[in-house]
């Protein structure tokens, strides 16, 4: 048995060593992590994180530039890198930012959109919105765990899908401190048919949740503010505009006060970290949104809306570094 164990130990040591080499040389990173690597290498001045709102172009737009591209036009001397993907939110941004910090990469500015819908359980608990692979690769790159990630995820050591569909569908939806149902009750409306009742349900779950200080999204945003607190990087948070006029049409006078209260919690939390927050939540009329082809309300903007947001960001950048 002793010889057997020695032989096996030598063999497995060879496997581990070879695998570490393979991981270092051959692994392909998730696209956004690879992009961030290139920005670190190129030392981009601004890193603009975002979800689908920053890249969405309306079919009626004449100017088809995304928000980062519009911002680049305003600051031709600064190099802007974008890390965006539909449904990205603070949990992904946090992993990327810690990745940047580990590599001592401190751009002049980091821009973080705060999508109010991302605090909804429909987003935070959505199995498809967790992006565990990107977060995992960003967190473990350079560690001994990294070469073994495919094996660990395939063999259940680490889960890429921490939230199951069942758990998601049964997650409670709380509004005005009362449970008004589960996500399954609100998520069921198919996108292929429209009804006023379905729209009302969507607005309710997207924007009329109760936001507490323990919310993980808020905690992530605080962690991002903390990450750059004693560094040269200035983080600009901005609350993305929502189509409040549509919200008011369905919920009348109940809509604005509730959402204002939510925005207040976000701003209060981040102000404790001395973070810059540009609040654009109620800045835009419904004519600047482009969600009608999606049937149900979202935060996508047309070119007028995008130009407005970028203008506000540019103003903030100029205030910070004239």
């Amino acid at each position, binding site marked *: *048995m002793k*010889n*057997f164990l020695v*032989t*096996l130990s030598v*063999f497995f040591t*060879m*496997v581990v060593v*070879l*695998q570490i080499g*393979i991981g270092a040389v*051959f692994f392909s990173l998730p696209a956004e992590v690879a992009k961030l690597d290139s920005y670190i290498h190129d030392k981009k001045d601004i890193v603009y994180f975002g979800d689908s709102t920053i890249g969405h172009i309306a079919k009626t737009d004449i100017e088809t530039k995304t928000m980062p591209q519009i911002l680049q036009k305003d600051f031709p001397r600064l190099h802007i890198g974008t890390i965006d993907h539909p449904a990205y939110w603070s949990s992904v941004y946090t992993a990327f930012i810690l990745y940047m910090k580990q590599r001592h990469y401190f751009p002049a500015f980091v821009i973080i959109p705060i999508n109010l819908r991302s605090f909804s359980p429909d987003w935070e608990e959505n199995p498809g919105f967790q992006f565990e*692979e990107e977060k995992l690769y960003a967190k473990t790159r350079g560690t001994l765990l990294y*070469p*073994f990630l*495919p*094996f*660990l*995820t*395939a*063999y*259940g*050591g680490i*889960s*890429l*899908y921490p939230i199951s569909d069942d758990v998601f569908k049964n997650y409670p939806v709380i509004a005005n401190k009362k449970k008004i149902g589960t996500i399954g009750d609100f998520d069921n409306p198919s996108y292929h048919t429209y009804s006023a009742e379905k729209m009302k349900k969507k607005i309710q779950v997207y924007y009329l949740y109760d936001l507490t200080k323990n919310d993980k999204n808020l905690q992530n945003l605080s962690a991002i503010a903390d990450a750059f607190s004693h560094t040269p990087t200035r983080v600009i948070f901005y609350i993305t505009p929502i189509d409040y006029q549509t919200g008011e049409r369905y919920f009348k006078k109940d809509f604005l006060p509730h959402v204002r209260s939510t925005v207040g919690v976000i701003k209060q939390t981040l102000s404790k970290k001395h973070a810059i927050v540009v609040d654009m939540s109620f800045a835009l009329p419904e004519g600047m949104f482009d969600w009608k082809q999606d049937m149900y309300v979202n935060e996508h903007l047309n070119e007028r809306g995008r130009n407005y947001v970028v203008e506000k960001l540019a103003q903030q950048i100029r205030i910070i570094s004239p």
Partner: protein
Amino acid sequence: MAFNSISFLIFFVIVAIAYFLLPHKFQWMLLLLASCFFYMVFIPAYIFVLFLLIFVDYFAGVFIAKSKKKRRKWFLIISILANCGVLFSFKYVNFFASNITQLASFLHWNYSLPVLKIILPIGLSFHTFQSLSYVIEVYRGNQKAERHLGRYALYVLFFPQLVAGPIERPGQLLPQIRKKHPFSSTQALLGLQRMAIGFFKKTVIADRTALLVNQVYNNVTMYQGVPLLLATIAFAWQIYMDFSGYTDIALGAAQVLGFQLMENFNFPYSAGSVKEFWARWHISLSSWFRDYVYIGLGGNRVSWIKHARNIFISFLLSGLWHGANWTFIIWGLLNGVYLLLYAAVKKYVHLQVRGYKKIQQIGNILLTFFLITFSWIFFRANTLSDSVYVVQNVFAGYTKILHNLFSFHLAQMKTSVLPLGIGLGLSVKEILAVSVGIVCIEYLSLQYKKKHLSGVWGWICMLFLLLCILNFSVTQHIQFIYFQF
């Protein structure tokens, strides 16, 4: 605890080391405790269901051995009723309830049966049949009743084969439980090699194929023609790699511990007839139905009508064993039809092509593969209507493809042949790795059959397989197909 998990690997290493450090008289206790732990990871309370059946069958065996003629039969009946009753309660009660409700609705009767929320205990179908095999063999006088309750419990619970077989016969496994198993480095290395082969088949090949199969079969009505055909053929390979991969891990793990379990597969897709296929596929189950149902009913030593009846009953039960769904029943019956047709035309087919043996052999293999793959449609489809849709549409759209081919519209041909837009994730390096991996498997399997270690090349093959497992395992944790049975 799934085989394809870190927790199983850690569990197995600990159990194997402890097993060989313990004196022989305590080894069975360790294996029994380990097997109980292994089973309880799924749903702990269900161990009591297993214990109940173990007690019933243990005492049935003891009393059958002690009793005379009529009473022996009663104990056998009690055991069969207990095992089948538990199986029915967990696996089939909802199926029958919903069908009775539907029938009542069809007849305009105001009658419905409640559907219970039950989770099927893992491996129930497998260990039930293994237990029945023991009691039947004791009744037939082929097996001495096991007097040691702990050893009998281990026969049922032995963790490498507890969840998805092979369904062992008492004459094969019980003696091994009593026997001493000193550590053998040859057996341990052969066992580990076999486990590596199994993990490669499962997480590199089967799970990768599952990505294509699941995309199509979970949304069948979105596809027509080539995608359905590709997915069906892919499923034929997925289920083979998945189940034979599981079997390799089970047999390999048992071999490390010094146990020899029965082979469950013998290159089934090289079969030249459906009859031969069933002698090569899931051998432990097909031989169980042959020995305890088919032969029990008279086999083929009866009139042609009764022979047909025996085949249909055996395959109906086989289909039902796999799952409480009409799709499995149709799959089973379809295979029964194949066997009957084969029996009916066997002589005639042989006479027609006597002069062309090789061509006939290849033709038979391809025909058998086609027939079996066609039946897999029913096995894989989620519902009966899905299976009907696939059957109706799997050969649709080919005239358009042929038209495009002859009109040199290659761009259109590509769109019509590959409309899936699926991401199998198959880069050149992955295709290369899987291909070389399969060569390694074949080499190691050949050496395995010779029961000796394969020298430097064997180690290189093992190394390659492990590196493939580390790098090319599908990152979605997919359960073994046969775990659901």
